[in-house]
């Protein structure tokens, strides 16, 4: 998204146009290099291809994570999950499958729960991301975090960040009306340690306490 930044992050047409222009610019430059065989060999020897790629493969991205604004350069193929974990070092969001099948990577994007492994980072231009690290209010835990501790809603802890982010959203969405409804709407988050009954109890406690 070089040059012109969209005021409306959901304006997908402008977003797509932007990347298309970027892509064309890049590809014409690469084509120019590629048309001169002698230079290509030299480029390879001096790893110019790598250096050029290093510059041109990355896209500038602005997003807000847990209230902090970030401007980063990412390759278009980088997922939001890997951006969080590997570049921003926010490792509370977990990778369990990288295929959107386990929910360990659940974060909130503009308040909606999302599998961050299925979201390319560059599609989050201008968006507000909340991760598990941003859920507590300073030292004061979010009621869902408290409830997970009280009801022992985890064992190894690896799915826990995703479970809690999903649980908070589950109540906000109005999907915590009964045990059965909670189970259904929490079934995108796998817990291999098998803490499901305790997770349901934690969510019900928060729901009934009206503290979500």
């Amino acid at each position, binding site marked *: 998204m070089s040059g012109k930044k969209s005021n409306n992050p959901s304006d997908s047409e402008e977003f797509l146009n932007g990347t298309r222009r970027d892509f064309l610019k890049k590809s014409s430059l690469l084509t120019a290099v590629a048309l001169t065989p002698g230079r290509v060999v030299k480029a390879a020897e001096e790893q110019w291809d790598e250096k050029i790629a290093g510059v041109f493969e990355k896209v500038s991205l602005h997003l807000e994570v847990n209230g902090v604004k970030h401007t980063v350069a990412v390759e278009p193929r980088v997922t939001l999950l890997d951006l969080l974990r590997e570049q921003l070092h926010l490792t509370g969001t977990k990778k369990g*499958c990288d295929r959107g099948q386990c929910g360990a990577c659940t974060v909130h994007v503009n308040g909606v729960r999302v599998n961050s492994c299925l979201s390319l980072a560059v599609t989050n231009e201008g968006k507000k991301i909340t991760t598990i690290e941003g859920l*507590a209010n300073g030292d004061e835990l979010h009621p869902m975090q408290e409830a997970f501790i009280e009801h022992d809603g*985890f*064992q190894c802890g690896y799915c826990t960040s995703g479970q809690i982010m999903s649980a908070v959203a589950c109540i906000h969405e109005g999907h915590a009306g009964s045990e059965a409804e909670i189970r259904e709407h929490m079934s995108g988050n796998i817990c*291999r340690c098998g803490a499901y009954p305790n997770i349901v109890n934690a969510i019900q406690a928060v729901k009934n306490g009206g503290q979500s």
Partner: protein
Amino acid sequence: MKKETIGDSLRRVDGRLKVTGGAKYSGEYEVPGLTYGVLVPATITSGTVTAIDSKAALRAPGVLAVITPFNAIKVPGYQPEAPTRIKGLKLFNDTQVYFNGQPIALVVADTFERATHAAGLVKATYQSQPHETNFHKNIEKGVSPQNNKDYVRGDVNAYKNAPVKIEQEYMLPSEMHNPMELHVTTAFWTGDDKVTLYTKSQGVISSQRAVANAFQLDAKNVQINSRFVGGAFGSSLRTWPHEIAAIQAAKMVKRPVKLTLTREQMFTLVGYRPLTIQKIGLGATADGKLVGISHESHSQTAAYEEFTERSVNVSRFLYDIPNVNTLYKVVPLNVGVPAPMRGPGEATGSFALESALDELSYAVNMDPIELRLKNYAETDLEKNLPWSSKYLKECYQKGAERIGWSNRAAKPGTNRDGEWLVGYGIGCGAFGAYRSRALAKIKLMPDGSVNIKSATSDIGPGTATSMVLIAADILNIPAKRITFELGDSSFPVAPTQGGSATISSVGSAVHDACIALKQKLNALAGKVEDSNDDIDYAKVLSQNNLPFLEITQESNPNEEAKKYSMYSFSAHFAQVYVHPLTGAVKIKKVVAVVDAGKIVNHKTASSQMIGGTVGGIGMAMTEEAVFDDRFGRYINGNFADYHVPVNADIPQLEAIFIDRPDPIINPIGTKGIGEISLIGVAPAIANAIYNATGKRVRELPITPDKLI
């Protein structure tokens, strides 16, 4: 001030870290200059790699190395002349391919994405051979494993001549551990002969030994960190070839390497519960007294390494049977090697044994609990020793009450609730109660707080929380003043977290260390050694001009224990609803009743029991790794197609503890629950489904197609 004691319900001491994302797992450490390793899998199932073309991969942006059998540095421990040669698969050491997906190259690049892309550019040429992956086709090639002895007690043919006879075959498919955390290793060399790892390990000391052995290093030059482990269930009991490969790669690129397996790779590279077929022959008198049993098991293993488990052993001791014979064979195939998985052996064996017993109960027209009581083993007939403790009768009684056993219809298929058929079932289990040598270092600080260190691990049960509770009880100080650290190989030696023995072993070391500290403080305070008077620890230190007080205590199994047979016992009860038209099964309730000696922390122990029950529900209802023999690959190597239970599959579950201390095994009297929580769940459900429908399913998982 209220002080916590053994038997309380203490919140997890690491709970806050886990709910805030602050707990760091092995792939989450910031290491300067970190690079990323991605494995390239073999696309043949048997044969050799004849050439690897890395040119395109090496030209790709950010790639630092492509490590193959043709350019890898030698791992000394892999060589025939090594003092203790590493067993099993040796990556990049030779060109042999034993199974599909076996790594044949490792790409290292400066980002994960670049390494992943370049891994797809590596081109291998193979000399392929015919492969054998079909268990059923090759079952006749089963061999007796080297480390296993078949067993006979009394007359081998006794069961055949009994008035009532059950002869059946039971099958369990391969089941994957599938911990939520991907297996990951970050390795970096801190000198020519010094290496540090952050790795997913159930035993930092065993990992340290394995790495030292592989690279022929002094063990003290190998630092293993595994402070948080995102589940394992047995998959991190050993150091796997890809961990050695990460260390090898770090040496070659001279930078830290983080190697993370994909979920699909975890189906072949980190073990699984092997596909097993068991034959049971059970003979009894007309009034249900068992006369004899024959239990035979065949399970699959890898062509390159033998893996055995104790599937048949449970039949030797769980019931009072005079004539017993067991036989166990493994079938080597072109597949990855299995590994112990929660309740290894017993979980498989009890499915066969407890199903057969249920079949017998209908054959002799007897209540399944009555049948078990009639054949209750008052001593261990296999070892010919008394039990150190056994309260299985109490388990039957409590479980029957809680599940509502009196509502069970004796005749299958006759209990209805609306359009649903209702059934009840019981499944029992046992798992050895072990204890091994462990050390703990305890340090009393000037402010009166206490820190304890031990090189054990925690894969989720709440080890640190239980240790803090033990220390709080003995030192008589609040739990919040005590910290417990683990997962670091520089700490005092402790066993691997496995075999349900961590509290028994490490808990005993913590117990003994606390006693030693207390005795020392009593002496310093001028009291008799065993005084239980409240003393101000901080004051004792300052009065004696001591900056701190530190004791490292070793704790060993007692001699007395050799005179007893020590087991944890469980009885699981299930109530199921089955829809006769669709074959849909709703598990309404499972009650797990356990004799595991003294329970240290009820909060975490209940969660562990419930968790094991969930694992057992997966085994019974959904889990099956499906293989395509044409290509030698799993066709469901992911969470969308390999079904572990999800929240909607699980009802409220109940864990009940007999909670009576074992007088022999260790000072706390605890026997362990990690495995027992799962053993017996699958047969309880299968038996309940039979009771509901009259359909006996002997092949797990019990999917709806098997019921319509």
